């Protein structure tokens, strides 16, 4: 055995060129796969992050009736008296903030706006003192200031403001309907502009304080949702389930409420999903995301199709080079057999050699892939900086980052070696089946 290993090693170092070419095929294939996978994953993670940090929060508690009609935003299906629930969440150590979301029509009047007009908008009312526990809007204010608890002004998304030609200090009237259906007119002004990495928010955000919304819409303390901060990784769904059962509310999955949860005394269960008016439900960001606007560029580009195609090219590159390397040595095998080497030993020696090439290629490939990943994770590339001279409409500040994917890196490493050995097996077997003289005649 020791002899076989040292023979394989000698062969590897003797045919340096062949080793380099075959190993480099493996290395480039692996590095490319790791890099593209990390990049696509990074783009997806980033859009998830943007979604969770600015739109959905990791999870929300809503009245079941409200969640069922999320786009309609029915104020009468709110969480009445959210105080005890917030206190309970506080005692469980979960960061939470109440919000009220309603739809309204923004009325814009000529002077200071360039023209008369109106736009419908989703207005988000937040508690400026607790919203930062879950979201990150204070740091996203690009002009003007953040909201204060006794504020009557609004924050607006930077792109929306650009589209409407609105500036800080401009007055805006919001026409909406309060709880119970009465019409209400809210005269307010823009106190700040918000520029986040989330395009959907930049294009649509209108934000006021929950204190003002409570007054204008006659909410009497009712809010439409309580947004929670939970760690995203690992068993996120399990965490949602666990917290939901601690609170005694059902959690929502893929459009159906989980029924295993036994409601705690005092909580009103949602019957058959969501009809019961007073029932609360807890919804994770994945289910919420269906109803939001975020753009997932990575998904859009069909990442799985791209990865499959990358894998095909890489696999053909690896197996082709390897097949060729072994086929070309039928003659050498004939020579060794003629000198009396056992078939089994010879096969083992060749497989060891293939494993050696696979190992060298995988090490270099993984190292290169990790290095490229590391740069893309730490620094990223600004795709749109290259487009500075082009008029792309919006100012998209989008540095694209990669994400680490240890699983794929390990799998790529193992596959690199296994595939080399597997591919080497067939031509070796073929050569061993031939008679020695045939082997020697083979060119």
């Amino acid at each position, binding site marked *: 055995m020791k002899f076989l290993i040292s023979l394989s090693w000698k062969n590897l170092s003797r045919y340096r060129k062949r080793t380099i070419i075959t190993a480099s095929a493996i290395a480039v294939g692996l590095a*490319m796969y790791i890099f593209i996978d990390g990049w696509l994953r990074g783009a997806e993670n980033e859009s998830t992050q943007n979604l969770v940090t600015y739109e959905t929060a990791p999870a929300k508690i809503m009245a079941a009736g409200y969640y069922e009609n999320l786009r309609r935003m029915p104020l009468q299906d709110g969480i009445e008296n959210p105080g005890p629930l917030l206190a309970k969440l506080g005692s469980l150590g979960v960061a939470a903030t109440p919000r009220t979301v309603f739809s309204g029509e923004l009325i814009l009047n000529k002077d200071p706006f360039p023209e008369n007009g109106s736009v419908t908008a989703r207005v988000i009312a937040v508690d400026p003192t607790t919203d930062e526990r879950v979201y990150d809007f204070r740091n996203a204010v690009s002009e003007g200031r953040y909201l204060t608890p006794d504020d009557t002004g609004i924050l607006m998304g930077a792109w929306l403001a650009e589209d409407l030609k609105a500036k800080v200090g401009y007055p805006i009237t919001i026409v909406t309907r309060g709880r119970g259906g009465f019409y209400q007119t809210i005269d307010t002004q823009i106190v700040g502009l918000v520029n986040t990495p989330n395009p959907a928010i930049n294009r649509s955000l209108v934000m006021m304080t929950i204190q003002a919304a409570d007054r204008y819409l006659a909410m009497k303390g009712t809010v439409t949702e309580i947004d929670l901060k939970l760690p995203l990784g690992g068993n996120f769904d399990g965490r949602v389930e666990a917290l939901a059962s601690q609170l005694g509310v059902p959690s929502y999955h893929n459009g159906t409420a989980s029924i295993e949860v036994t409601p705690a005394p005092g909580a009103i269960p949602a019957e058959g999903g969501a009809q019961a008016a007073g029932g609360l439900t807890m919804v994770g960001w994945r289910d919420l995301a269906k109803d939001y606007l975020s753009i997932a560029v990575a998904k859009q580009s069909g990442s799985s199709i791209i990865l499959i195609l*990358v894998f095909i090219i890489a696999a053909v590159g690896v197996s082709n080079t390897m097949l060729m390397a072994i086929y070309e040595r039928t003659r050498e095998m004939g020579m060794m057999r003629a000198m009396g080497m056992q078939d089994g030993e010879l096969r083992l020696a060749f497989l060891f050699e293939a494993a050696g090439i696979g190992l060298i290629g995988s090490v270099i490939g993984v190292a290169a892939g990790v290095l490229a990943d590391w740069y893309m994770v730490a620094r990223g590339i600004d795709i749109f900086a290259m487009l500075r001279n082009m008029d792309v409409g919006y100012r998209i500040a989008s540095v694209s980052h990669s994400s680490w994917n240890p699983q794929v890196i390990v799998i790529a490493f193992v596959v690199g070696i296994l595939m080399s050995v597997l591919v080497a097996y067939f031509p070796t077997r073929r050569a061993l089946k031939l008679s020695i003289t045939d082997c020697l005649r083979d*060119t």
Partner: protein
Amino acid sequence: MKITGIAIRNISRNVRRSILSVTATLVATMAIVVLFSFIGGIRQNIGENVSDFISGNVRIRNTEYDANEYMMPIQFRIQDPQPLVRKIESEPGVTSVVERIPFGAGVYRENDTVPIQGLGVDFAAEKGFMKIDRLLHEGKLPEAGKNEVVLGPTLAKELGVKVGDKITLLAQTMRRGTNAITFTVSGIVVFPLAGLNGSLILAPIDRAQRLLGMGGAATEILVKLDDPAGSRAFAKRLSSSLSSEGYPDLEAKSFDQISTILSLMTMAEVIYGFIGLFFFVLASTVLINTTMMVIYERTREIGTIGALGMTGGEIVRLFFYEALTLAVTGAVAGMIVGGGFSILLGNIGIDMSDALQGVDLSTSNIIYPRFQLGTTLLIGLYSIIISSLAAILPARRAAKIEPVEALRTI
């Protein structure tokens, strides 16, 4: 001639090696062809949806409206659009012309108002433009002059309405008054864009004019051309004729001059460009590796023919011809396989509805990859050039070695 003859014989002499070498070119070519067809499919899909539902190939609007379109200032309108529609229809190269009024409205309900996007359209003309009759899923299309609307299934479900039910639309008129009309839902239409299914209500344009107090005016005229590539030139010509023919406040823009659409398309182009680049790099290494391996393994053979008297130049040419033949075979086969696969997928379509969940780009749920002959030929040419050039370098090195040295390598 002599050398090409030897090259051909060499290829058929070692079939196995030739097959491996051809496979590399074939797979690399095929994968890139499929990728570009896929990208082409997405691009065409965005283009068609944008042109059907948003901008047409060319869009005419009031300049003032266009400058402030997000406020929907419907007071900046196209007065009496019909003669203009007729006139543009008669121009050569025009497929279809429609007038439309996009407006924001609310569906009035007992406790709340649900915001929706309204679109006043000429249903008869839209049969040739957005192919509205093919989108109809249930019921019938509204008739002009009647208070009837059609809407997407998601929105219908949210509002809890069925065909035959009544809904009340509430909107601000052109002069900023409030107006409401009650409509009967005459049918359900399924739009190819998921986003529209949950928000869009189509009403006859005369009813929209009544609701918004616009008289006989429209907000925009959309033009579809036989050849969308000529949009920019057509828009330019149309713009200048508009101002000289008594429509000084109107302006025609081609779809790629509209900034929001442009930013979307540029973003997609850049991302696909990057992915394409990576594919070319990866495919090139595969091609170069395989070709180099083929030559390298034959150092001994090169030594033999060198010893028999073939000059270095002839050896290089021999191997170049060989590589070229293999590359052409592989590339042609790759183009055929990749093209066939793309055409097949183009007919079946790739269902992206899972992948596109929550995405509000202008893409449909099903992507039909689009086979493009020009791109495919360029990709094939690229593979041929890389593979055959990759043969020259190692062949030259091998030809320079003394025959005795070359013969010693195994």
